[in-house]
């Protein structure tokens, strides 16, 4: 703004864009646009063959660029203060890109995605398109746009860029949710629900942003923080604005009382998309939450902390208790994701001095990696257990899976134990790191609630394990589809990550420590 005013009238100075520092994001968005062009010009039978390598290579390339940036040691604010390039954002970008890569490996448009999204479910048109063998290969560019949005959302250094990131991430996801091949009505319902509630939360976010701008005169996170000290007399704008921003962000992480969309959407969406949302979106949203609450509203922590306490307690308890009553595996995992968001929030609350913030941030980052891998792995297993009518979602169908397919059931049991936080799995150290940070940050009562809800959560994880191994299989039980190499690879990678992070977490802890060391740039 000041540069604008200082320039002589009649000329508009060009903004400086640090292209090298934004390269990972640019690569993903560029690949997404190329993907759209492929949709437009490539012959139908070639599209899939082009999309898969294009998507995977661009994600791998973006990951490599992120590593280069991290090694390079660049830490500043790029693109005129719109995007932060710092330790936490690079770590989160790396995590999102790896998890997205793994989730995209699960994509299989003939198995999971609808043949023609525009056809009415159950119509002759749908039958025709099925016979014709049509596929919606648009899922690949859409996913890339969503992933690019996640990158921007988690690294945005001003609220406007954050909102753009939020929308670029969310809009493709709304569409992708409605593209399930089986049980299409459920899928479309999920998409509509997600869209409506998501639109509301975006509106909350936007309105909150406007009020904060009214308070601080800027949307830049660091300037908002500065204004907290100097501006006075406009506190109403600040409090209402912060609350509305909080609603928008807490919706995205699925914190109670804004968690209602999660089970419906996770259940209805095609499972690879669920995996992408449960891992990538959650990581990105936590990046944004940390940035808004620690950077922009960092000096307001005395005011938002009590509210966050309430939200965290409610989230943990609601997630853990409602999960018990679920009979669908994807809904159960959705509620478990809500409970995990609550555990992560205990880390968000554990602020204090710089050393304390570093510890809490490092714990959250480690948790996000650990949880992300495990959850992608769990959803990958869900895609493999299939009935005649698609995935076997109902828990009763999973009875005796351990007898039919001991290896797959064993791996799934392992993921569930990791969710429960049993030692020697990644979940234990994740939970440990976050809870230890919260205890040293003075949030011991919150940790006690966390501990109790982990015990409740352990109950339904263990129940599924018992169901798989100690119940008799139904005679017409689901089959295990091991035809997809990609899915098998995802399960293997996720299981390996869960073991390694559980037994030898030191390298990743070091990385998280290093990323958290400089905290956020301002």
């Amino acid at each position, binding site marked *: 703004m000041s540069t604008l005013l200082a320039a002589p009238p009649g000329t508009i100075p060009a903004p400086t864009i640090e292209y090298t520092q934004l390269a990972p994001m640019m690569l993903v968005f560029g690949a997404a646009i190329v993907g759209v062009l492929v949709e437009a010009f490539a012959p139908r039978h070639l599209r899939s063959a082009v999309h898969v390598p294009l998507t995977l290579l661009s994600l791998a390339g973006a990951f490599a660029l992120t590593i280069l940036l991290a090694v390079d040691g660049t830490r500043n604010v790029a693109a005129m203060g719109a995007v932060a390039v710092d330790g936490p954002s690079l770590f989160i970008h790396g995590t999102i890109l790896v998890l997205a890569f793994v989730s995209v490996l699960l994509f299989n448009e003939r198995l999971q995605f609808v043949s023609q999204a525009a056809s009415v479910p159950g119509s002759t048109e749908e039958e025709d398109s099925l016979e014709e063998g049509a596929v919606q290969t648009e899922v690949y560019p859409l996913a890339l746009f969503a992933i690019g949005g996640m990158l921007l959302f988690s690294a945005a250094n001003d609220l406007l860029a954050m909102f753009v990131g939020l929308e670029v991430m969310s809009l493709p996801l709304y569409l992708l949710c409605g593209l399930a091949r089986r049980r299409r009505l459920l899928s479309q319902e999920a998409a509509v629900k997600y869209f409506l509630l998501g639109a509301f939360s975006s509106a909350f976010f936007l309105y909150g942003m406007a009020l904060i701008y009214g308070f601080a005169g800027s949307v830049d996170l660091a300037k908002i923080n500065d204004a907290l000290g100097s501006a006075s007399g406009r506190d109403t704008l600040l409090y209402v604005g912060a609350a509305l921003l909080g609603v928008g962000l807490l919706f995205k992480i699925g914190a109670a009382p804004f968690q209602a969309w999660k089970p419906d959407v996770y259940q209805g969406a095609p499972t690879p998309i669920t995996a992408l949302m449960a891992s990538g979106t959650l990581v990105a949203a936590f990046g944004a939450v940390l940035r808004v609450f620690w950077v922009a509203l960092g000096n307001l922590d005395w005011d938002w902390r009590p509210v966050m306490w309430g939200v965290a307690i409610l989230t943990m308890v609601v997630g853990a208790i409602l999960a018990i009553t679920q009979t669908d595996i994807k809904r159960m995992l959705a509620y478990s994701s809500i409970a995990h968001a609550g555990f992560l929030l205990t880390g968000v609350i554990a602020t204090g001095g710089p050393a304390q913030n570093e510890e809490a941030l490092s714990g959250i980052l480690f948790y996000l990696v650990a949880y992300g891998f495990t959850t992608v792995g769990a959803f990958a297993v869900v895609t493999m257990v299939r009935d005649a009518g698609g995935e076997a979602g109902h828990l009763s169908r999973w009875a005796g899976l351990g007898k039919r397919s*001991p290896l797959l059931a*064993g791996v799934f049991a392992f993921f569930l*134990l990791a969710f429960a936080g*049993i*030692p*020697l799995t990644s979940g*234990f*150290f994740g939970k*440990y*790191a976050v*809870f*230890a940070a919260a*205890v*040293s940050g003075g949030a*011991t009562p919150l*940790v*006690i609630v966390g*501990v*109790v809800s*982990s*015990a409740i959560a*352990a*109950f339904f994880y*263990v*129940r599924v394990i*018992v169901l798989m*191994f*100690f119940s008799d299989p139904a005679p017409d039980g689901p089959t295990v589809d091991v035809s997809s190499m990609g899915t098998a690879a995802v399960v293997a990678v996720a299981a390996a990550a869960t073991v390694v992070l559980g037994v*030898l*977490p*030191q390298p990743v*802890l*070091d990385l998280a*420590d290093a990323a958290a060391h400089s905290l956020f740039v301002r």
Partner: protein
Amino acid sequence: MLSVAIFLPLAAACVLAALPRLGASAARAVWILVSAAVLGLAAAMWAGYPGGVAYEQRLRWIPSLGAGYHVGVDGMSLPLVALTALLFLVCAVYTGRDTPRMPAYAAFFLFLEAVSLGLFAALDLLLFFVFFDLSIVGMYFVIVGWGHGDRARSALRFFLYTFLGSLALLLGFIGLFLGGGTFDLVELAARPPFRAEPGIAGLVLLAVGIGFAVKTPVVPVHTWLPPAHTDAPAAGSAILAGILLKMGAYGLARVALPVLPGAWQRHAWVVIAIGVVSVVYGAFVALAQRDLKRLIAYTSVNHMGYIVLALGAAGLAAGDERARDLAVTGAVTQMVSHGLVTGALFLLAGVVWDRAHDYDLTRLGGLAGPAPVLTALTAVAAFASLGLPGLSGFIAEFQIFAGVIGTGIPGAAVAGAIAVAGVLVTAALFLRVLQRAFLGGPGELTARFTDVRPRELLAVAPLLALSLAVGIAPRPLLDLVEPAAAAVVTLVSR
């Protein structure tokens, strides 16, 4: 050598888990061989034990969390390591080839063996916690998979109760870490955290205490124990009572006393009260049981109460130091003795279930006729459990009473006197069992009984023989335990 003993069963468990199609005989052979090898290692360690903390091994694991792989044994843990090795071998011998899903069963027991050995050897709190938690998971699957009756429900109650306890324990360990800056038990004991903040030390002790109290268990957090024991398979019950319960009492002696000495001293009377209540309540509730296994389970509450009482008395800094040494020695001896005797009792109860498929004492009777050897074994085990001189229970309980009363503090003397009354009730209830089930006229289920099979005899006899050996010549054991107990008393008296 110690690490080999820990990881050998773990490796064997992985191999068995990877080979679910293995025949039952082969799986059982692997199980017995590996357990025997571990027992051999434990015996070698005992024979070559030089005193102090021996066979120590320290590796970097997670330096940024201040946690390392640090194991070692001293006079307190070595008897328990040996007991673990013996009891698991005995369970392997006891288990028949007809057990369903034998490879998985053996794998779970080997896994539990590794975890138990690791726990008793751990000198790092995080490592300790890892093994503590894994023991819960392993035992849960043993009960769910191979138990009887309402096993899913019992196992779940066991899991939730002890898992919640373990999370409280984790909370306490996090507190210790924040206070001491490390998870290393040796360093923590050398520089106890929270010396200047009694309030925080009390809260940390509460968290740690809840964790161990659930596992021990003491009244009022014992309610998971009877159903878990009743519905577990015989070998599972033997391990649960013989080894897993020790983890709680051992944890108190290993972690709470040396690391939080001030808090332990201040709250010693609470611990003593809990111990006495457990002793009396456990004994009386056991007296009222009709179910043989529930009865034995409640005697466990009673027996573990003596240990808690002794450890509480160790915290009475004003008391006579030699008497407190004696009490802690008695507590460790009681852990070993209870492991041997209750392990044997549960295996014998397993024989009863195998024949009658019922534990109801009122439907049994006159078993001495068809099963004289079973009767003799049960009689010896019962007498050992009620503390008859000449058997291990007497040595342990005598030391505890002498130590507690010998502290010279009136309150402790009263507590000791009340606890002695517990022995009387235990004696009554075991005599009642012998009279009801084994002597007297035949009951409705007596016709189904045959005498013990060779493998059952082979499993139970060594336990009772050792109990007898400890009862007659306790010196080898006490020579090992006494220095370690004195060290703990010195640490807690700071």
